[in-house]
């Protein structure tokens, strides 16, 4: 039978393609056991259940160990522990939430909310704990898109408990306005509302909290991105030049408040004909890809227009759940995986940086300041 160090040594040949380190140094290998007759088993703990290369990693592990002498069998148990936002323990906002992902667009009508609900559903379907904060004051639609039936509950301490739909905890602006009358939100009111959503909602433990931001790059959007402790954002655009121009403004807004942008999602990327199955490019092709390249950002993927997508959303089930085999569902799943792995990379890069803090000055130790002459 192989020794523990021989097994670990051979596992060092397996690299995580995103984090560029071997899985042993990354601490992914846990609970290694080697039986007397050469049965090797261990947990492979990845940084996200939505890891796009989990099967590839598992294969590589099995191959590496089988190559050792005296191995009778190999069992690789996949699991995931989502890495949290740096500085999380010091944070007073959203204490149990590991990653906050903002979904934004430079203009309305590009399908931002559809992308948000499908990303949330795709992450949840892969085993992550997901929440949705619908902050789109102009047209809060997540309640409808995710098929939320219940109202949030409030306890005596005025803490709000979000209802769950499709396994996702949802809080939406629409839950706090009467009837169907549009609410006239003034800037300071929105700001207050978002503060309340962030502070008073009991999100519990979440791997990902998706925030559906209002479209555009005005004062309200800027305030929201400043106030919510956002880990990173994705920007949604259609392939038209007008939309792309506004998407660039969106990128600049995030740059201003130092929120990293994971990349661009191209929505309505061609129309999939329900008669012949052919993809027709209604707008130009690859517009978002070009913008992403010119801005040095990852292109996260393209979602085609399929008649079923909008319908599914309207009926309260995102397409990744209602027609998981459709082209758009596949695209959404791939984008969700990309997003999850980019967030893991970001976490690794931000190691050691203070992101959220609240320091009581007198409690800090006084250090001596030595200034060179």
């Amino acid at each position, binding site marked *: 039978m192989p020794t523990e160090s021989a097994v670990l040594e051979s596992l060092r040949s397996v690299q995580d393609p995103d984090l560029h380190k071997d899985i042993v140094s990354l601490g992914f290998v846990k609970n290694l056991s080697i039986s007397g007759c050469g049965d090797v088993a261990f947990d492979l703990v990845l940084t996200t259940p939505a890891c796009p290369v989990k099967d590839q990693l598992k294969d590589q592990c099995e191959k590496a160990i089988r190559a050792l002498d005296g191995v009778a069998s190999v069992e690789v148990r996949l699991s995931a522990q989502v890495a949290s936002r740096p500085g999380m323990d010091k944070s007073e906002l959203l204490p149990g939430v590991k990653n906050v992902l903002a979904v934004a667009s430079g203009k309305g009508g590009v399908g931002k909310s559809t992308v948000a609900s499908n990303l949330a559903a795709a992450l949840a379907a892969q085993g992550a704990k997901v929440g949705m904060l619908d902050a789109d004051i102009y047209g809060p639609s997540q309640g409808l898109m995710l098929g939320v039936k219940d109202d949030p509950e409030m306890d005596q301490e005025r803490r709000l408990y979000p209802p769950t739909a499709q396994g996702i905890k949802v809080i939406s602006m629409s839950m706090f306005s009467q009837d169907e009358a549009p609410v006239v939100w003034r800037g300071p009111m929105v700001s207050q509302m978002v503060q309340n959503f962030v502070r008073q909602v009991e999100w519990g433990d979440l791997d990902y909290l998706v925030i559906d931001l209002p479209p555009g790059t005005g004062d309200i959007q800027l305030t929201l991105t400043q106030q919510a402790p956002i880990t990173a954002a994705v920007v949604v655009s259609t392939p038209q030049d007008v939309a792309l121009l506004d998407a660039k403004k969106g990128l600049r807004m995030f740059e201003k408040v130092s929120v990293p942008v994971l990349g661009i999602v191209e929505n309505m990327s061609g129309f999939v004909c329900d008669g012949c199955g052919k993809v027709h490019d209604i707008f130009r092709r690859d517009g978002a890809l070009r913008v992403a390249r010119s801005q040095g950002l990852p292109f996260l993927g393209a979602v085609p227009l399929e008649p079923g997508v909008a319908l599914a959303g309207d009926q309260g089930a995102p397409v990744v759940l209602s027609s998981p085999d459709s082209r758009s569902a596949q695209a959404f799943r791939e984008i969700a995986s990309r997003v999850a792995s980019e967030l893991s990379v970001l976490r690794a890069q931000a190691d*050691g*940086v*203070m992101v959220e803090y609240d320091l009581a000055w007198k409690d800090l130790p006084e250090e001596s*300041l030595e200034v060179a002459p």
Partner: protein
Amino acid sequence: MSLAPVAIRRYAGGSLGVDWSDGNRTALPYRWLRGQCPCARCVDEWTGVRTTGEADVPFDVEPVRVVSVGRYALRIDWNDGHDSGIYGYEYLRDLSAKFAQGPAEAAGKPACGSKGGHVHD
């Protein structure tokens, strides 16, 4: 990775120090820093003219709380009750450069005995 603090330090003699993600370390004396507050109560929003400077600030001014604002700035709540100053990280770095150039010409004389600017290891 954008510019962010790795550590925030309270230095004896009354300076607020930051170790930055790019390896730089800075320290600025409280009173001078309070005098550079960029908020609308200290700088006229329309003219850009500073209305509250170091000379208007108590000698014993010091922070009570230092709180992160988003990912781009920190807010200092001072013991004189002033708590609206949001110091962007880029702004703090500019201030350090300004202080290092010569605090006297930058913003009048600094508090007696105060030291600061860039810290050299």
